[in-house]
């Protein structure tokens, strides 16, 4: 769905609308999303709060909030929204926007996980779980978490010892480049930022 540029003013809600085709103004705050949200007990902003703040264009607080990074994308909110607002997709869009603008403040471990995960794909095209765990530990500082699990995993034959590298690795790297470029282009056209993060995913 494309929204005419004139209908999308330079508000965060307008930006979300342009990027996703979803209109945050359609949320009428019934709270059904938050009632079913499995993370609502841990987040300061619940899904309907996020939608409300978009309506008020509370840009700074939203993009720097930890809560958007605690969404598991279980999609319960989206499945139950009576007005098809799709909070899960909107939260994804906010995370990406926050990264591109350098405003993102995810918890350290979650940032480390996304970063380690995507690095693995760039390195071999597939996820090498042992590599993911090591890389995640280095990035998060959670060096000793789950160390006792390694022998159990290995004994059950559940950890591959070497990464399997795909043939089309160059292709995967080109996909990462193209997607990073695409997102930073689309950010720069709306926020008029001089130098948006060119490595959005990379900086996660």
């Amino acid at each position: 769905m494309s929204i005419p540029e004139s209908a999308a003013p330079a508000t965060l809600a307008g930006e979300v609308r342009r990027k996703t085709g979803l209109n945050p103004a359609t949320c009428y705050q019934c709270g059904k999303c938050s009632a079913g949200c499995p993370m609502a007990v841990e987040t300061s902003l619940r899904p309907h709060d996020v939608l409300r703040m978009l309506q008020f264009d509370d840009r700074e607080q939203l993009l720097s909030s930890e809560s958007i990074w605690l969404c598991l994308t279980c999609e319960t909110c989206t499945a139950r929204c009576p007005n098809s607002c799709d909070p899960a997709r909107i939260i994804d869009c906010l995370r990406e926007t926050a990264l591109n603008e350098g405003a993102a403040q995810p918890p350290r471990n979650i940032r480390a996980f996304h970063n380690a995960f995507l690095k693995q794909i760039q390195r071999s095209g597939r996820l090498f779980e042992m590599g993911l765990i090591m890389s995640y530990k280095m990035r998060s500082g959670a060096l000793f978490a789950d160390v006792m699990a390694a022998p159990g995993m290995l004994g059950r034959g559940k950890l591959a010892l070497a990464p399997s590298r795909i043939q089309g690795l160059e292709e995967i790297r080109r996909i990462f480049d193209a997607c990073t470029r695409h997102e930073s282009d689309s950010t720069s056209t709306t926020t008029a930022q001089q130098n948006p993060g060119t490595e959005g995913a990379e900086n996660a």
Partner: protein
Amino acid sequence: MKIGYFPGCSLHATAREYAESLGVITGPLDVEINEIDDWACCGATSAHATNHLLGVALPARTLALAAEQGHEQILAPCAACYSRLAAARRAVDNDPATGAAVEKAIGRSVGTARPISLVRLLAELAPKVREKAKRPLEDIKVACYYGCLLVRPPELNDLDDVEAPTMMETVVKATGAKPVSWNRRLDCCGGGFSLSRTSSVVRLSRTILEDARGAGADVLVVACPMCHSNLDFRQKAIARRSEGGMDIPVIYLSQLVGLALGQDHVALGLGRHFVSTASFISRIPGPREGESAAATEVG
């Protein structure tokens, strides 16, 4: 029936037993699965949470490869992989601008291959499962756990209903086992936070396990490696904070089907779980008299 196969990263490592059990049951069910050559990771949550186009382009490349390799359907046993392939399919089909950006990014035409989850495939094969079942599982009470990504978001739902799906129960009934009625079968287990926010996973998965136990389930059946890891591997940590312990075996739907087909539990990878399946397996009677045991066929 011939079908493309996208194992995804987990089935090559932590969910090895899911792949093993799948390999054992496809033959008796007359399904031929062909692994897509040179597939890459779907990007899972880390891609879609940080870069929308990346989260669509990575699985779209796999859709393109499948089509190039002559497949109309791709079996994605992992619920997360299924969900990402379905999201890519939908984005390309319904949004020309995204479709164009994706094809530019992957340098290929996406083609028309469609993903299918293992739950749907087995539900469609349920009559055959019933017909080929060699070992009655009549006394086994099963909690069918769907989790999130097989049913949500609604537009990617591969099953029959978003809030009240029945397909796993259909498969379980075909094996002869009894699905129990319980409340938490569509709840989230904490998914991708297994490493990065374990406390949330423990909180969410505990509720699921306790509910399954309360409903009298002997075993919890899943169709997602992440759910499996959170409910099986993390069960020890969960039990520490739960009265009366846990000790509920968590197995893949394909393993339950394999047991009903009379396959050997070692070949089905039932020895690879963290919560022992031994006592559960010992309750299953041997193959029906007068029928050759498939277990001997696979050695």
